[in-house]
């Protein structure tokens, strides 16, 4: 039997040692009538070779982004991943271990989490990071819950330019505590600052802003921050693209209180959207209100430097219904990929990835703006690596036509409540100039009326 090492003979010996004649005696506690009488209805077992053949067949039904040129973003990005990342995350010592409960035999995991936390702090400018959340959506949802723990104010203002799926997850996570969610208006693809100003009052516990936002635009955080902190109790929660932080101002510079984001872009494959991971960082004075695991440095009995899980009294296994979060398993291996990725790229490499993504996306945006009947939705608004385009026909049709030319043209914004002619296009450093020109040419040749 695959993955079961005991032979029938050994099984017999073991039953003997236990003191029973048959396996059935061991499950006496299960009332007879509750037991399954016939085998599960599953397809027959496959050998290693047969499974490989089946899986190859399944895989051949996919068309991946190595086959077609990918301009899709909206939270998950096709950045380049150096080979050594997988070599390290493929180490059984890392991937078959679990949460580092026994610190003495988990220093490998604990140290990389400590390094990961440091990298997140360095990128965001914050003081303390946790060891990860499930994804960018739950990270921002948990941030809102943390703000409630901090100031007890049950009203949150949500920027309408944050990822629409994040909003859905926020709604799921905050319904239980009866949080009032207020949405402000947009102007030119960003938050309408006047509208935000008019909605601020003393009961607003947090304001949630994504930058670069769902549409790719960079929010004017300096001005927004002043409005948010006009109430000294209100916490500014941001969701940021970690790659953008190589070239954009860190959230600490605009006095963010809680910084979250989707970390997939840091060295993790897209896998149709998961696993992802959420990062979560804040100020140290709120450490005890944080969700999730945190690793701290300490020493062992001989005074040797060591790492361990810390501030566990916040967590579900100790505080149960009073815990700061219900999270237990997180996305640890994804943060290892991120840590290795950043270590390989280094200071200059990360800047290069961010810069080239910005350069190439702006180049393509310019090219598209020249195409008759196409225009940028927000020509005056600065963006990072993603931008919205207004097409002469529904985006859905553009996507289909471009698919025929082996290009994943972008994300149709209609399902998210935008005009059906809007297309969201993401460009990473992976795109060559030729691909960008081919994209623009393909669009031009559509001759849409």
């Amino acid at each position, binding site marked *: *039997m695959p993955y079961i090492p005991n032979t029938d003979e050994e099984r017999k010996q073991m*039953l003997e040692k*236990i003191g*029973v004649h048959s396996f059935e005696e061991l499950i006496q*506690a*299960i009332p007879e009538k509750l037991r399954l009488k016939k085998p599960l209805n599953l397809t027959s077992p*496959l050998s290693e070779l047969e*499974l490989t053949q089946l*899986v190859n*067949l399944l895989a051949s039904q*996919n*068309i*991946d982004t190595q086959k077609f040129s990918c301009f899709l973003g*909206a939270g*998950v990005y*096709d950045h380049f991943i150096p080979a*050594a990342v997988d070599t*390290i995350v493929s*180490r059984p*010592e890392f*991937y078959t271990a*679990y949460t580092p409960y*026994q610190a003495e*035999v988990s220093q490998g995991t604990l*140290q990389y989490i400590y390094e990961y*936390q*440091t990298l997140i702090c360095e990128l965001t400018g914050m003081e*303390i990071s946790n060891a990860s959340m*499930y994804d960018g*959506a*739950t990270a921002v949802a948990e941030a809102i819950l943390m703000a409630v723990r901090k100031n007890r104010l049950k009203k949150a203002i949500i920027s309408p330019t944050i*990822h629409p*799926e994040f909003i859905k997850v926020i*709604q799921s996570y905050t319904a239980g505590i009866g949080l009032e969610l207020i949405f402000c208006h947009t102007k030119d693809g960003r938050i309408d600052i006047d509208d935000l100003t008019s909605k601020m009052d003393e009961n607003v516990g947090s304001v949630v802003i994504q930058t670069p936002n769902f549409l790719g635009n*960079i929010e004017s955080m300096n001005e927004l921050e002043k409005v948010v902190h006009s109430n000294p109790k209100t916490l500014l929660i941001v969701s940021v693209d970690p790659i953008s932080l190589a*070239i954009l101002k860190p959230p600490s510079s605009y006095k963010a209180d809680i910084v979250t984001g989707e970390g997939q872009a840091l060295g993790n494959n897209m896998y*149709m*959207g*998961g*696993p*992802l991971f959420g990062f979560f960082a804040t100020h140290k004075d709120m450490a005890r209100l944080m969700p999730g695991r945190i*690793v701290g*440095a*300490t020493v062992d009995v001989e005074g*040797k430097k060591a790492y361990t899980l*810390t*501030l566990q009294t916040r967590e*579900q296994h100790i*505080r*149960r*219904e009073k815990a700061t979060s*219900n999270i237990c*398993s997180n996305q640890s*291996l994804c943060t290892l990929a991120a840590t290795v990725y950043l*270590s390989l790229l280094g200071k200059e*490499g990360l*800047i290069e990835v961010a810069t*080239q993504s*910005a*350069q190439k996306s702006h180049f393509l945006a310019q090219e598209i703006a020249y195409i008759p009947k196409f225009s940028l939705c927000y020509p005056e608004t600065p963006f990072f690596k993603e931008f919205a385009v207004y097409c002469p026909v529904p985006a859905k049709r553009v996507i289909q036509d471009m698919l025929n030319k082996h290009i994943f043209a972008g994300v149709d914004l209609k399902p998210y409540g935008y005009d059906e002619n809007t297309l969201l296009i993401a460009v990473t450093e992976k795109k060559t100039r030729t691909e960008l020109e081919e994209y623009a040419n393909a669009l031009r040749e559509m001759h849409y009326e």
Partner: protein
Amino acid sequence: MSKTIFEISVPGCKGVTLPPRDPDIPLDEIIPQDFLREKPARIPELSEIDVMRHFIPLSQKNHCIEKGLYPLGSCTMKYNPKLNETLVRNPAFQNLHPLQPESTLQGTLQTLYELQQDLAEISGLDKVSLQPAAGAQGEFTGIRIIFTYHHSKGNTHKHKIIIPDSAHGTNPASCALVGYNVVELKSNAYGRCDLAHLKSIVDDNTAGFMLTNPNTLGLFEDQIEEIASIIHSVDGLMYLDGANLNALLGLVKPGKIGFDLMHFNLHKTFATPHGGGGPGSGPVGVCDKLAPFLPVPLIGKNDKGYFFDYSHQNTSIGKVHTFYGNVAVMLRAYFYIRTLGANGLRRVAENAIINANYLMALIKDYYHIQYPEYCMHEFVADSTWQKKEYGINTLNIAKRLLDKGFHAPTVYFPLIVPEAMMIEPTETESKDSLDAFAAAMIEIAQECKENPELLHNAPLTTPVRRVDDVLAAKLLDTSFPIKD
């Protein structure tokens, strides 16, 4: 101790090269200077070999399944098949964007569709959502479904969920997140739910009951039918924390013994790796009447192929993940189920149960066992004898096991057993390996008597000695102070 990656950084070093810039537009011409970072983030600079020589030795400081038994009770640390690791790395799975047209995702969608079907069959429930990212998020999703179900019927007064005192911490935490009051149910002298107590706390305000079965003591809740009828009599719903499903595969279908909904832990039962703490995956299965509330989208199938099914959008609890959950984990679970088939899965449960009982038989004369009956896939021993006689507690025993090349059991859980050591060997351990673990446990029992100092000082041979947790909380040193 290894230096941190920040201390071995060498300015100018690079671990990867990127193509030259083309087009090369000055940054400040495309993004206003105001938004640009002034001082670069101090990401360490290393060559590829430096990176390898940092992380590989780090990995070697970990215990892992390939090194030896990892009997963390409740976590099902079974062997993770290497074939699944290879197959999941197929570029046609790795390089899929979640928002590609469905026509280009058919292989992965088919796989997930079939996994939904398989989990429904295994659990005896009707419909499965794969979206939750881990067990705890599965719980949250399930309890949100319970909440939405009651509200859809206008039963907004139902404000409490009952949970046994032996439950995992995520259970009450997930209920609280949904906004429920948690009422704790006592266990009886047999380590099962105390029915008299249950009857006294169930009332019309009861929204549901959350049970782990087999429970965290490794015992099957044999009164399950009566429990279900009590809960159902007040229109409460029966939720199964499926963390221990490994013991039931092919033996019992939770949906057929009284449960209305449950979550699965793919990273436990279905052999997907634990990843040093994650990612896992916590699909939720429900009976028909709860299907309208499942998260969107499900994976559907029609004559055109497989698709993201949003048809129940208006009744759904909404979403718990940005996209569809931890897809790469689901793929591995699917491969595992395909490899084992129905008989294989049943053999998994049988061998998990035999292994646990065998191990218990080997050590029961040396360690106290509060509920000494045949167990399912795990059992809870404790060190109350050792504590009373020699002043040795469970923590000391756990640390000594590390010296002997084993991971420790789950300790001090469940909370209802003092000095608990929750031991789950899993079916992937051989008899020899169980014999070796038992020998180590027995040796330790001997050491408690003959050389208790050894236990107080343990571990002695691990990469670091006993770690000072109190100091860690006091220092709160959670990131390295990088020097410019």
